């Protein structure tokens, strides 16, 4: 079951493996507003495609659970053995309520009830059932709730803790997993331990000789809010183009513009660099040693094949910055950084470059209990004891369509470009995708007098931009879709400040918009082009007087 992911475009390496499994006879359920390639492609046809209205994931996944519970498809042996039975019973009563039936949920989601029933039966009874989900799940105001609902589904059917099953997030970038593992959150240190845990903090304090703050910091959207109100003054950004990738671009620009010190370290003068006071040239993956960790927790070596053109690997730049700021930091090689990670992180205790060289890669946890790593998690039990079933009430997003903004915009990526295109736009890949286009259903296009290839303005309550229209039935009536690869379009001018209740992950997947024919760039695009040109001017070298 694939929910809110488009593997052939977003995760092509994984998709090729998945296609092999599908050609070998695996059944396929796709839950996605768009008719992605895997719905029907040579030798592959999804058994069920549930084309839900953007923002209704929780309702649809809970409806799947309704069918599983009310039709007696629960794996009771697994639930009794591995999960909290009382909590299961509460949850089962919740999902069994008639308001979660496929027939009721069809009214909200637009997905035919029979498709939901068929998909639920197939997932529960078709043998090993694996769920793969992507940003189409997380990038919603109820993203976390959907992930919980998915976990409930896997536990209820016993589809967890063995080969071929499980809850498998397809990460947004190649090393999201590694960044998360290393505590790239404002509230955690490595190994998903909260900063308020005294014993954990004491380990770091003993090694580093400095006290650590026990309080969480700000997340990016909150940083920007705090910058605008004057209480957040500086930021160090490595390899992330937040001006283009984050929502509500004009708000982001105001926040970056309000800061006293913006340091950007990147391969190119990315869009965020327009607001940088200091730009530090970064190094590519070919110019540095280190590790990437993929979605299956597999730690893999990244090996330098050439000296960095800028003179330094990224970790060396951070080290120099730390030394300049007064905290002495010295490593001879990233392997010493990994040794420090192993000393401070129980799930990485046995990870070392020597082991990675010997085995090729390892999947954490890798420690005394699992010296060669852990390919499959949750085999005999969950980390925190009995599996918890949690109630997942559907709460409609506050981003609603109406007379002014009657269509729903959802955004995504395509195969030939990567994210904001900082790297791929600078290659010949632009031949395949020279600009972002707006996918619109023929009915919606006709109502607005829009023809294929016309320039259209897309406007939301946050802002407006222009791009060309592509008329297609890949999107349902009422839904439009585009990519965010090009700064000339910068579609995040249109996306809003709404975010997930638990993580503040922006709600990129649901924005109420209007589309109309246009004959030129929006006001924002004109202003931004001027700013971008001005910010990239290079001063004439100073000539010393003779």
């Amino acid at each position: 079951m694939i929910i809110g992911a488009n593997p052939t475009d977003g995760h092509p390496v994984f998709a090729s493996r998945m296609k092999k499994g599908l050609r070998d006879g695996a059944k396929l359920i796709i839950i996605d507003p768009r008719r992605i390639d895997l719905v029907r492609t040579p030798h592959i046809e999804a058994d069920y495609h549930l084309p839900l209205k953007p923002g209704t994931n929780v309702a649809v996944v809970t409806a799947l659970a309704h069918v599983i519970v009310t039709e007696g498809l629960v794996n009771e042996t697994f639930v009794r053995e591995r999960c909290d039975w009382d909590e299961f019973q509460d949850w089962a009563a919740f999902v069994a309520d008639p308001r979660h039936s496929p027939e009721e949920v069809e009214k909200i989601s637009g997905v035919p009830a029979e498709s939901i029933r068929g998909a639920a039966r197939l997932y529960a009874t078709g043998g090993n059932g694996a769920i793969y989900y992507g940003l189409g799940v997380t990038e919603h105001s109820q993203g976390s709730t959907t992930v919980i609902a998915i976990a409930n589904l896997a536990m209820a059917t016993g589809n967890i803790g063995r080969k071929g099953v499980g809850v498998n997030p397809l990460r947004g970038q190649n090393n999201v997993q590694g960044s998360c593992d290393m505590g790239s959150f404002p509230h955690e240190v490595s190994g998903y331990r909260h900063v308020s845990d005294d014993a954990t903090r004491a380990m770091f304090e003993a090694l580093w000789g400095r006290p650590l703050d026990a309080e969480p910091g700000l997340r990016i959207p909150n940083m920007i809010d705090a910058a605008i109100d004057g209480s957040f003054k500086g930021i160090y950004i490595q390899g992330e183009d937040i001006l283009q990738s984050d929502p509500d671009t004009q708000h982001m620009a105001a926040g970056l513009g309000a800061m006293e010190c913006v340091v950007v370290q990147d391969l190119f003068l990315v869009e965020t660099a327009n607001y940088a006071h200091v730009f530090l040239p970064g190094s590519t993956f070919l110019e540095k040693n280190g590790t990437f960790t993929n979605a299956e927790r597999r730690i893999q070596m990244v090996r330098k094949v050439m000296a960095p053109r800028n003179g330094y690997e990224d970790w060396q730049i951070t080290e120099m910055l730390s030394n300049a700021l007064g905290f002495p930091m010295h490593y001879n090689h990233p392997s010493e950084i990994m040794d420090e990670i192993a000393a401070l992180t129980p799930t990485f205790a046995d990870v070392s470059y020597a082991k990675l060289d010997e085995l090729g890669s390892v999947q954490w946890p890798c420690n005394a209990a699992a010296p060669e790593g852990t390919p499959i998690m949750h085999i005999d039990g969950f980390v925190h004891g009995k599996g918890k079933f949690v109630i997942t009430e559907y709460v409609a997003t506050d981003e609603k369509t109406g007379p002014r903004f009657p269509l729903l915009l959802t955004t995504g990526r395509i195969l030939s470009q990567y994210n904001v295109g900082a790297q791929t736009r600078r290659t010949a890949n632009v031949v395949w995708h020279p600009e972002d286009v707006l996918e619109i259903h023929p009915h919606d296009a006709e109502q607005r007098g829009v023809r294929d290839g016309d320039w259209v303005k897309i406007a939301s309550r946050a802002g407006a931009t222009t791009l060309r229209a592509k008329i297609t039935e890949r999107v349902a009536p009422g839904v439009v879709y585009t990519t965010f690869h090009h700064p000339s379009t910068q579609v995040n001018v249109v996306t809003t400040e709404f975010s997930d209740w638990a993580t503040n992950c922006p709600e990129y997947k649901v924005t109420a918009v209007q589309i109309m024919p246009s004959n030129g760039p929006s006001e924002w695009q004109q202003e931004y082009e001027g700013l971008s040109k001005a910010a990239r001017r290079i001063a004439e070298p100073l000539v010393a007087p003779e």
Partner: protein
Amino acid sequence: MSPDRLVYMANQIGKFFEVQRADEVVPGIANHIKKFWDPRMRKAIFAYLDSGGDGLDPPVKEAILLLKAHAGNAGLSTETSFQGT
């Protein structure tokens, strides 16, 4: 930081917890805010509550009061979670 934004965020958290078991609603909201909100955000929401707390849903108000009463001590749980995009 705008009180409207904080009220919105707090109520969003409240909507998730208010359907959980009765004894988990208020502690759940309080714990989430304690674990994930920067101190300046918590301080701002305490000040907003002191000025009347208009717009905060009842269990959210109760949770913020609980949090305020525990401010400065580490009494609430610190169990954490996997995240990322």
